[in-house]
């Protein structure tokens, strides 16, 4: 087991090298000159040159000798915990991220809560009585959920309360710690818009997982012992059915991050997604690069955590 975990962590290195190289090269292929974007169209040739020199943009992208060009500068900085400076805002990318991360984390955590609260009870109810009217209603709702684009759902969630009740969430970001109620007013609709499409997929998986477990011998044994249905569902079915559910919730992290970008943009929440979008538009390479690398690290560890939790949830699984 330990050996397995170590090998999986070692896979992190090729993934990080791959991801950092791809992002680095792609971002530099985006048409437009960073210095020009940062200084505006009136900048003189001289000030553009100074800007490039100050940010190391006049160096070659790759170099065989230390410090290995711009790529080497960036990776060297990352290893020291230095993400570099934004060309556009002249701020430290690390501070930008630290400031925006809580917004995105809160949005994603709330969305996952929405997802679980809707999907798991619905999936169990549907799976326990397959092909019953309740099951059909749940399944139809799930197909609808999978078909509604997140950006449109988000737009409707802003628009309809404004038109029907003349209600809009308070503007400007409110921290949870200074005003919990105002904060939740801001986050509840974005979290629903982000969580509902995901809930549809998780509900379907919960249902099929419950169906699968109900066929197992130990569930039949539990029935024949005369246990109550409640006990069987909660103690025997749910615990074993959780395995694939953990996987899909984990694998949704990437999709959830993309979804968060769209939802933050619609609801004007100053999170990581909004920052990524603006950084791509202003060719702020370092911001985008930092986010992609962080996301890749999270991805690798989430996947590892999923695989390890398998062994914990199902003792039959062994790793070699």
């Amino acid at each position: 087991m330990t050996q397995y975990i170590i090998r999986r962590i070692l896979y992190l290195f090729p993934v990080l090298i791959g991801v950092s190289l791809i992002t680095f090269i792609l971002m530099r292929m985006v048409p437009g000159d960073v210095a020009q974007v940062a200084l505006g169209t009136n900048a003189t040739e001289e000030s553009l040159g100074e800007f490039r020199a100050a940010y190391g943009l006049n160096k070659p992208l790759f170099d065989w000798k230390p410090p290995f060009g711009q790529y080497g500068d960036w990776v060297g900085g990352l290893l020291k915990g230095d993400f570099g400076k934004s060309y556009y805002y002249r701020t430290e990318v690390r501070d930008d991220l630290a400031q925006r991360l809580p917004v995105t984390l809160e949005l994603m955590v709330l969305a996952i809560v929405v997802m679980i609260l809707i999907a798991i009870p619905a999936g169990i109810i549907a799976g326990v009585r397959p092909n019953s009217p309740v099951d059909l209603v749940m399944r139809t709702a799930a197909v609808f959920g999978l078909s509604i684009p997140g950006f449109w759902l988000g737009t409707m969630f802003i628009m309809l309360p404004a038109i029907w009740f003349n209600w809009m969430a308070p503007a400007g970001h409110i921290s949870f710690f200074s005003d919990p109620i105002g904060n939740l007013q801001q986050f509840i609709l974005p979290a629903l818009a982000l969580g509902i499409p995901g809930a549809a997929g998780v509900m379907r998986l919960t249902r099929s997982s419950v169906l699968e477990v109900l066929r197992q011998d130990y569930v039949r044994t539990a029935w024949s012992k005369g246990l109550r249905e409640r006990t069987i569902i909660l103690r025997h079915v749910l615990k074993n059915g959780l395995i694939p559910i953990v996987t899909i919730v984990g694998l949704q992290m990437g999709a959830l991050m993309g979804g968060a970008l769209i939802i933050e943009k619609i609801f004007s929440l100053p999170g990581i997604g909004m920052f990524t979008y603006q950084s791509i538009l202003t060719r702020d390479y370092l911001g985008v690069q930092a986010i992609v690398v962080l996301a890749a690290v999270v991805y690798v560890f989430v996947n590892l955590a999923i695989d390890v939790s398998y062994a914990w949830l199902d003792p039959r699984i062994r790793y070699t």
Partner: protein
Amino acid sequence: MQAARPWPVTFLARLRHHPLGMLGLIGVTIFLILALFGHWIAPYSPTGQDFVIMQSPTLSHPFGTDTLGRDIFSRVIRATPIELRVGLISVFTGVALATVVGLVSGYLGGAIDGAIQRVVDSWLAFPPLILLLIITSVLGPSARTLIIALVIGTIPGTSRIVRGAVLAEKNNSYVEAARVIGASQMRIMVRHILPQIVAPIIVIISIMIPVISLLGAALSFLGLGLPPPQPSWGADVSGDALTYFRNAPWMAIFPGAMLSIYVLSFNLLGDAMRDIFDPRLRGSGAMH
């Protein structure tokens, strides 16, 4: 052993027992008709402007008009061919390339598999939407860019699934028999293994069409997919539609509703296809 009838015939025969799948097929057919004959059905040109801007839905403009006085009903209909073309070309190209990657990686195994899978790992480690946003900003918004980005988004996950199917298939005795009589690697992959994994590939295509359509629409919504004035269900929900939603909510409502119905049709049809072609995957839910 499969019946000798061609699979579309078997499929249609079995679809009769899937009322929702039938509904999906009807929906998809309607969208195909709109794509082929939309220019006869739509009452106005999708880019033609009227003097009455942001007009609420009336008989002459059933879905209202936008800030430039364009008829939203006509725009929503005339967006169909490009959306359908982008979605289908992206999914079929992406799945075809992913099949090649998965087949080679899974069948050859060893160092080649290891190398390919580390590349796929890096690819999957990107948050999908961010990778596609970077690619579209490199290439500039156009239908061609959107297709390239969506193909790139389709390959890694799909190739993993294909590889898994190949791994399950390649230890069968028929593969060994082919090897013993001296069949080449290429021949075994293409003539022996590929036909055995057709069912999961069809299922993947049916899952990916709605997923990729939503992703493409999201890129258009963010301004990096189909460029204006091209009518697009994604792009038409953003911009002025978001700015003026209090005065003209129909600008955002109808394109998104049309996209939802389109994706729903493919989802319903895809679910029925999954039940029919691959009962093992029944109800497993689309990758989202």
